């Protein structure tokens, strides 16, 4: 190893560390701030760790977030179940069964993942209100299921494309119908794909804000954690330590998934990007 290479390495690691600092700075200052008293927030640098750490901001913010966190969990579970199930059926049909205009129909379906929701917000609000689902958990589960289907279908169609046609053809020769092939061959051989799509959908529904804001009905109704955090931020403009603690509460499920299941989540991002 010569000097030029050593020098190159030092520059590279220096660059990587610098950017790590930049990317972690908002989260780091949130963590340090959330452990401080209001007096210490005003006195010390946000980068510095508190001299007398306190959990008071976490307790205070949890008080207004605990209900919404549970609501978010229920909405997310329901929305993931619905969109993954229906999206997986689409992915199977559009990757393994040929019929007239199949690509065109799939494109119409996939386009649903890209429309700006502002263009359907008035009809959506009217529909959910007419169904008496405004401000209810089922209303939000229905909405997330519907708008989750296109992305799930795109992801599953990619993953199912990797199942060899010969296995499917053999099963068809043996007299199995599409439904049976789906349950007996496609689903069991693609557990990993399902894990990828579930983590992807979990994070996107958990993170969602607009539907929760419009259809959740606010305080005391089906208000998800993202909306509650935004409200907390709006009502406590100067109490940074409570806001930061609230942000950490709301981010926690996704951060845990990112740390444990990051590999699968990244595969979801990549598959969505390459074909989406």
């Amino acid at each position, binding site marked *: 190893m010569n000097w030029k290479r050593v020098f190159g390495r030092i520059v590279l690691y220096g660059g*990587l560390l610098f950017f*790590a600092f*930049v*990317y972690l*700075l*908002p*989260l780091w*200052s*949130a963590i340090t*701030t959330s452990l401080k008293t209001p007096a210490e927030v005003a006195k010390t*640098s*946000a980068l510095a760790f508190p001299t007398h750490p306190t959990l008071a901001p976490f307790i205070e913010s949890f008080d207004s977030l605990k209900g919404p966190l549970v609501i978010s969990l229920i909405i997310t579970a329901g929305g993931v179940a619905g969109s993954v199930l*229906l*999206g997986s*059926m689409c992915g199977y*049909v559009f990757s393994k069964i040929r019929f007239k205009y199949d*690509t065109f129909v*799939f*494109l*119409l*379906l996939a*386009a*649903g993942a*890209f429309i*700006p929701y*502002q*263009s*359907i*917000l*008035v*009809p*959506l609000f009217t529909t959910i209100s007419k169904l008496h689902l405004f401000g209810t958990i089922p209303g939000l589960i229905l909405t997330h*299921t*519907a*708008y989750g*289907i296109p992305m799930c279908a795109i992801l599953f169609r990619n993953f199912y494309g990797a199942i060899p046609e010969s296995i499917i053809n053999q099963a068809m020769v043996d007299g199995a119908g*599409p*439904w049976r092939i789906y349950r007996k061959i496609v689903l069991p051989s693609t557990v990993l794909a399902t894990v990828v799509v579930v983590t992807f959908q979990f994070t996107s529904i958990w*993170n969602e*804000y*607009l539907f929760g804001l*419009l259809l959740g009905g606010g305080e005391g109704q089906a208000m998800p954690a*993202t909306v509650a*955090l*935004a409200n907390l*931020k*709006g009502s406590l403009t100067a109490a*940074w330590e409570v806001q*930061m603690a*609230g*942000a950490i509460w*709301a*981010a926690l499920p*996704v*951060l845990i998934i990112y740390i444990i299941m*990051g590999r699968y989540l990244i595969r979801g991002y990549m598959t969505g*990007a*390459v*074909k*989406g």
Partner: protein
Amino acid sequence: MRKSTLVIISIPLIFIFYFVYVMMGWNIIVSVSDSIGAALTYHFKGFGQYIKLVDDPRFWTSLKNTLLLLLLIPCSIGLGLLLAMMLDQKLKGTGVFRNIYLMPFALSFVITATLWAWMCAPTDGVLNNLLRSIGLGSLTSMWYTHDETFIMTVIIALVWQFSGYTMMILLAGMKSIPQSQLWAAELDGASGFRLYRRVVIPQLKLPILSAFVILMLYAIKSFDFLWVLTEPTNSTFTLTTFMYYVMWKRWDFAYASAIGNVLLVLTLVIVVPYLYSSYRRGEK
């Protein structure tokens, strides 16, 4: 098509047909109807809402701000490319760095907007304090609290959130270039930045195009971050926040649906050619 196939896809297709296409049509009808406030009525009234839009200075400000947000695309791609090049070197521990850079992308816009509200708080915020302590006090700013620096602040924060994602897309593109090509180029004397400029980057056209389109969609559709960072006002509206304001704060559903349709057209101009070409490639 067999009957059982139809049964499998009928439920999801009905969902999408109703929630996407029926609602799109419905939204267009509302925008040309005589609806007043939140009460929807369906007599054809004409294109008055669109004429009102053209005469509304808030619409032009929103459109300008939406287009200004597109500046985050070249910034995210440039920064993503730099990060991808650094991670592409055969160094130890790059996986950890990759996960750190991508982490913001996994977080909700509501959370990142809360974090950035503190980062860019005008008086005692993290960035202003940091700038002062390293002697760059002249760079302190009012950030999102002043109309002039609002969009700039949003772009900085969103580049922080998206550049890890473009890094992933570009890094995957770099890894898929055959090793033999890189060796051949190295034998020809290309190395370091030259190797990237001459050999690697020209082969990243497709990943860069994907990143470009996806970021453009994110930029045009971005609502959560803007709405949470600070409630937008007349001069900081984008099309998305302006639409929501008209719908939810003014209860003018017909006008709101007209704004929504403008956004839809803007998006379709980007999505249709991209989806079409992407699947044409896939078919071959």
